[in-house]
């Protein structure tokens, strides 16, 4: 048990801080869910990669620094502290990247990881289908083997970043006679190719953060299969674990929101509803708790431990905390809370509304919180499935 940083860790923090102070754009980038904003974010990813900061935990050969998880958390703290742009390639670097590291062949790693780190390939995810949401094992989209290709048919939906992205990863039914989570295979494919049609979908904020993707005899080389045929479910679950856990939702993101909320409270204290004080302090405490829990998990993983269903505890906690903090923020803003960012009287209100809308999605994506509660009850507490 040691809760102070080593001199090496402090030096790493100082180096990250200095680089970010020089390189983070002075003006916020346009939304990554617009065509122009997407390309601005891609350029930011290139800048990060040029400084070798794109994905610090990755091995040097793939563009990383071979940093451990504690250093990763430190980097994230500095990244959020600096107000750096959101990561347009988060599906790639935070979800597919770690999955490739574990299940990819050496050729696949060399082919995909450096381009991912550089922002050359921005990834979209293809899990859900119109009839496979919470019940993801009901997947129907097929990949029929023909020689050294798979031929894809069917539909994926809620594919985040697919509107402007380059590649998609997802699971497809390779065994037509299979049921449920058997007979599924993890496949990587370029979105702009023959037989693949992308229809962007406007989200609550009006922007096209996700899309539905249709496959009509789309040909994908067998070399684009991740893992063995039929292992898709197992590999997808590992990816989903990264999504619920400490990669995608590092604590600094929420601590940053909590600090903004505390500032907002201090600036609006006189007009604030007395009840909101408790909501603000709860938000701050929960962001701290999430951070502490993540450091504990990282320490355990570094010491050779593993996480499984505990990721479901995380997912519920951060998604509910994020929503509560944004609700408290909007309460503090009072009548300005409904203004969009471009309203003349908005000030920084737009950011809170935007954050609130996105926070509303938290209990839904990465597996609904109801599904997570089932997982906790059955796998961690030992309650009966039926």
């Amino acid at each position, binding site marked *: 048990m040691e809760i102070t940083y080593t001199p090496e860790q402090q030096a790493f923090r100082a180096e990250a801080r200095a680089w970010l102070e020089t390189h983070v754009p002075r003006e916020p980038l346009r939304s990554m869910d617009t065509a122009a904003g997407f390309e601005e974010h891609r350029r930011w990813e290139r800048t990060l990669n040029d400084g070798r900061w794109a994905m610090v935990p990755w091995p040097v050969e793939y563009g990383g620094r071979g940093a451990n998880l504690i250093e990763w958390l430190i980097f994230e703290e500095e990244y959020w502290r600096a107000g750096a742009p959101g990561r347009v390639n988060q599906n790639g670097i935070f979800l597919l990247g770690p999955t490739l590291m574990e299940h990819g062949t050496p050729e696949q790693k060399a082919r995909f990881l450096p381009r991912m780190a550089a922002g050359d390939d921005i990834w979209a995810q293809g899990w859900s289908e119109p009839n496979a949401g919470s019940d993801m094992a009901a997947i129907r989209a097929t990949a029929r083997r023909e020689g050294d290709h798979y031929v894809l048919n069917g539909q994926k939906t809620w594919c985040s970043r697919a509107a402007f992205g380059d590649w998609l990863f997802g699971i497809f039914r390779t065994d037509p006679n299979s049921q449920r989570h058997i007979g599924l295979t993890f496949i990587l494919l370029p979105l702009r190719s023959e037989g693949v049609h992308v229809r962007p979908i406007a989200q609550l904020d009006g922007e096209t953060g996700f899309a539905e993707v249709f496959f009509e005899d789309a040909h994908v080389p067998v070399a684009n299969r991740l893992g063995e045929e039929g292992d898709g479910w197992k590999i997808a679950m590992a990816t989903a674990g990264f999504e619920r856990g400490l990669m995608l939702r590092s604590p600094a993101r929420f601590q940053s929101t909590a600090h903004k909320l505390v500032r907002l409270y201090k600036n609006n204290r006189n007009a604030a509803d007395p009840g909101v004080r408790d909501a603000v302090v709860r938000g*701050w405490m929960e962001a701290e708790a999430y951070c502490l829990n993540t450091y504990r998990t990282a320490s355990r993983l570094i010491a050779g431990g593993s996480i499984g269903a505990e990721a479901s505890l995380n997912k519920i906690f951060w998604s509910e905390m994020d929503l509560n903090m944004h609700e408290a923020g909007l309460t503090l803003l009072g009548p300005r809370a409904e203004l969009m960012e471009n309203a003349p009287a908005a000030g920084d209100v737009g950011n809170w509304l935007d954050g609130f809308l996105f926070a509303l999605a938290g209990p839904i994506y990465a597996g609904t919180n109801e599904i997570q509660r089932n997982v906790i009850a059955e796998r961690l*507490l030992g309650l009966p499935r039926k």
Partner: protein
Amino acid sequence: MHFDFDQDRLLFRDSVRALLSDECTPEALRTLAASESGRSPALWAKLADMGLLGLRVAEAHGGMGLSEVDFVLPLEETGRAGLAEPVVETAAIAAPLLGTLESDARAAQMLPDIAAGKATVTVGHPANAFVSDAHVATSLLLAQQDEIHLVPARRITIEHEPAIDPLRRLFTVEWSPGSDTLLASGPHARALLAAAFDRGAFATAAQQLGVAEKLVETAVAYACTRQQFGQAIGAFQAIKHMLASVAVRIEFARPVVHRAACVVAATADGEASLERAVTVSHAKAAASEAATMAAKAALQVHGAIGYTWEVDLHLWMKRAWSLDLAWGSAAYHRARVADLILDGDAPAPSFGFSGRNP
């Protein structure tokens, strides 16, 4: 940075758990609850033999010379076991406080007795309306304005205040300060009382974690066996989701309590420490909330049988309530964090994110 416990501490926790699960069976707790004192000298001696009572006493005084980081997991076990002996007061508050005052012969003399289980020292602190375990205490640390007194049991009169928790023993204590009982005064006494409060809140928070876990285990065990509509009620999502929500609260209270252990251990008693105040209050608020939430959920899962004296559930459920009130309730501690981080000009201290070494 390694925010986790090493093997030695986990093994010590396991041996404390093994001892307490033998000693604090529900039958034993019920027998004790029905007894007049509610306390067991034999059990107290075993806690001393295990090293728990002298854990915070220096080796030079016959103790183990360990810190709150070593103590936090055993304290959780005392909560899980439903132990009601005054471990928090004697071992987690009085021992370190007297250790700070070891240059005083009266304090130095008492330390080996605490470690050996011969002295039971309870604490009368302004934060608590009543003094627990005054009936079995050999000495009491009592506060009077800016003074701390070490008062022998023969110099007090007590009146029992029966409490809802059948194992809790609360008293109104009458006493008169004397120059021979005065241990510390002025700013020094104020600092020691502040440290005693934070130690009490921290140790109680650790116990609340154990209480919360025990309540969830009890509710899960019941939900796996109780059949309605032809199946175990634990298969219903209404039950699953309620208990899963409690599990989330416990999971995210635990590291907060463990961080508080680190900070209490690293802060000298004489120091005013914003960090200790914030981290301890956060810990007590989070653990207390988890325990009271667990108590309500466990009762609901049990249904009518949970509303009886007949099942053991009530022992832990009532402990969750009584420990919520001891050393500041969840609401009190959340308000204290709010005062500390929202009313000052300094930015709120933040683990990791502040980028400084705690």
